[in-house]
């Protein structure tokens, strides 16, 4: 006999469905601010996530450009007036001649312009 359930219908939530619905509605109204805050937080995270991809791509492109620029600058030979003078004097020694005065003047002129 004790295996039969006791009928608690009169005490359950189905005894007065309208009252129970009101209690649920009140509970849902009370949690609305917390849910709204969570949605706002989720939307902010999603927005940052949506920005992060193009930002990362842009950062990668910028890094590539800067890298290639640095490599290009390293490859370019030095063209300072001192280096030019040294090159002219080395050539004159090798050829056993005097350096051309016009060439020397042009190099010195470039140096004075800088």
């Amino acid at each position: 006999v004790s295996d039969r359930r006791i009928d608690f219908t009169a005490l359950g939530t189905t005894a007065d469905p309208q009252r129970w619905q009101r209690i649920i509605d009140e509970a849902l109204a009370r949690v609305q601010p917390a849910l709204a805050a969570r949605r706002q937080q989720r939307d902010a995270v999603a927005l940052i996530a949506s920005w992060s991809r193009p930002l990362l791509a842009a950062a990668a492109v910028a890094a590539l450009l800067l890298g290639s620029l640095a490599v290009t600058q390293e490859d370019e030979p030095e063209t300072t007036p001192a280096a030019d003078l040294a090159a002219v004097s080395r050539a004159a020694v090798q050829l056993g001649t005097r350096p051309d005065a016009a060439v020397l003047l042009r190099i010195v002129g470039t140096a004075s312009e800088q």
Partner: protein
Amino acid sequence: VPILSPAAADAADWSMASIARRSAAGLNTLRQRIVVDDDRSVDDATLVARVRDGDPVATEALARRHMPAARAVALAIVADADLADDVAQDAFVAAIEEIDACRHPERVGRWIAQIARNRAKDALKAQRRRRAVPLDSVSLASDATSDRSSDLAELRRRLVAALDRLPEERRTAILLHDMEGWPHHEIAALLGLPDGTVRSHVHHARRMLRRLLGEEERP
């Protein structure tokens, strides 16, 4: 009463693409609500994940699914249907506000019931402090004033009075098992008792309630 004002109707986008887009959005919302309202189709862990994202539909589904058990647990402790309603509501609100603290989302029902249990004990203490009258008088007075139907009120009064004669653990076990359909092992986990003890509680509670309610014991 017109559904749309003439100005709004003129301004609305009536292209087929727009109508199709809006219909699809409406259907998706409807589908989501139907899926979530069906007790068996969405598991508790999924609902908790959606509540953590602020989803009101999932929150409502969680309320419908687990507030009745929270109320049963509260009723077993406070022995007052109205107070149990308030405790169940408070427990659910606290659970949603602290949903990140739920470490086992697949067992969120038990977690909410545990919150309800603690809050019901606090409510009972507060009630006893406020009114130095026996619990029986409090619960019966409350029932008598809130129920419209006198038959229902009388039945509730008898049930509450009979339940009040049982120890708290037996009340919790019998209400969760016979009113909310919880299996023995779930009740055992909530109360921190062995399964066998819960079975025994349910068995003895049924026998005693039948005697108190004047039901015939049939072999």
